């Protein structure tokens, strides 16, 4: 992304976000008692205004061609795809953790990540690492810290 486009995108993003925020301040927070300068809306409103001002400053920077110290790599489709794949894998793990518990979901996700995302060919990494990692965390949390790990809602039915 060119420097100038970056500042335009940043300013538009910040302004849009602050306007949505200010809309929500008035439509999703009930007005409380007390002075008008001292309600549950006061600080969120003030923050929204500050952000709006900053968005305007970025816009001014864009139009005045003053764009300090910004040189970022452009977003590429492949990066977007990779990040989305990772996030979906993480979400699947979180759902699996909730449904079938730590002991089943963790070795499976580690196997999936090492074998299919990282494309590791070593059997130690693909099979031993998931078991050792899962076992270590289980021992640390359950026996050493006496904490709890997700047991899985489906597993608990049986």
């Amino acid at each position: 992304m060119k420097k100038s486009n970056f500042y335009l995108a940043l300013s538009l993003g910040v302004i849009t976000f602050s306007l949505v925020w200010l809309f929500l301040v008035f439509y999703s927070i009930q007005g409380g008692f007390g002075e008008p300068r001292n309600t549950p809306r006061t600080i969120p409103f003030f923050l929204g205004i500050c952000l709006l001002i900053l968005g305007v400053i970025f816009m001014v920077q864009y139009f005045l061609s003053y764009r300090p110290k910004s040189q970022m790599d452009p977003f590429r489709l492949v990066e977007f795809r990779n990040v989305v794949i990772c996030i979906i894998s993480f979400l699947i793990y979180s759902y699996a953790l909730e449904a079938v518990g730590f002991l089943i979901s963790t070795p499976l996700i580690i196997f999936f990540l090492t074998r299919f995302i990282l494309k590791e060919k070593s059997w130690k990494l693909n099979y031993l690492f998931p078991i050792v990692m899962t076992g270590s965390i289980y021992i640390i949390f359950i026996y050493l810290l006496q904490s709890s790990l997700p047991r899985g809602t489906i597993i608990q039915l049986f």
Partner: protein
Amino acid sequence: MEDVLIALYQVLVPEVLIAISIGSVIGIVFGAIPGLTYSMALALILPFTFVMESVLGISLLLSVYIGGMTGGSVSAILIGVPGTPSSAATVIDGFALAKKGQASIALGTAVIVSTIGGLLSLVIMVILVDFISKFAIRFGPAEIFMLVLFGFSTICGLSEKNLFRSLVAGILGLMLMTIGLDDIEGIQRFTFGNVNMLQGVNLLVAMIGLFAIPHILEVFHKKMNNEENIAYDVGIVKTKLPGWDILKKYSGLMLRCTGLGTVIGSIPGSGGPIAAFLAYAHAKNSEKDPKEKAKYGHGHLGGVIAPETANNAVTGGAMVPLLSLGIPGDPATAIILGGFLIHGLIPGPMLFIENAPIIYSVYFAIFISYIAVFVFQVFSIKYLVKILNIKPEHLAVAIFIMVVVGAFTLRNSFFDVYVMLIMGLVGYFFNRIQLPVTPIVLGMVLGETLESNYRTAMFLSGGSYKIFFSSIACVLFFSLILLTIGLQIQKRIQDVKIQKLRKANG
């Protein structure tokens, strides 16, 4: 005296000593591996401390912090890549010494001066914390509001290159803290009818996401894109401690750099990198012998001593505003503050009255941590550096499992896991568009104090803003805020002038 003895008794138990040892090793390892940070290590360790006793948990966090600060020098010297931003200045002469075959003495010197700098700053910290907390005990809500506002202005102004972008991030952090139930009237804000949202965005969950997930995504993306994540093979490494003559020769420099590091560390938002580079510049400029001065940048021991003393002295300095005022100076102390909060301890002047042994335990834990880090760095460095051989993507998988489990165990809530992932995605996006994430964390840490004190002060004054200028402390903090903003504007103007000059010169 009784409180000191209680604290000593609490710290000198095997569990705490073992925790400090483990924490020191984790800190050194995370500090030494480029790409991993001790802030990330602290965020990962934090959920473990949830089930621990307060002294045990806080000691573990402190030892990770100290180990991380010291460990950064290992990779800086051995491979020329700073393990932490604080050790970036050490690369200049440390790596040059390693290339000359003097890595062992550079490592040994870094270890011993780090310990000396850290311990001396601990002494200064004890004196300053006591003094400031006695002063701060008289603060009312208006003073605290102005103080937090000042802290916020310094953090956003000093910590990052671009003031406005830092401010955007800081304000987003403050915004996140307004989600959930309003503290004073119990009114729902931005909850959209979701019961889970009532408790708001958990600070610790957000920190885990912001620090760990972007790194994991970055490493995975590189690997998926067939780019090589670098693992380092450093061969056989030893630590050789410098002789008494060297320490005596540089004792003045060490003392000055300790003072510099402690003062800079105590200013919220400044931290290790600034202290280290200033100390390096000071060491070079204060060298009177032209021949010696010319050696800086090409492998001079003073170039290792100055930054390493200063960046470790920052740890003591950074604890001053944290313990005396409850204001963290950097992400690491923000996470340590989180450690205090999950044990129901609120740092600030009241902690000295309500829980003095905890404060003394912190002092002892820092002392023991420095000793532990010293011992591990001297005697087991050759084993610890082996971790540099591990491929980053394999570490990333392990870290991912740890962060998910850690986020869950904080409150046994899957909602927190999803929040952590969302915050991680935000962190990644921010990194990519060069918006700093540190002000988000600091905004979240300071947000609650800022709002609750603003609202209490406004209740007390009947809605008049005059209360914020009603005492000397308020006016002082307000003047400091104006000064900070003024300095930033001056810097911006200078930047514009420099840019115009560069353009004019082609």
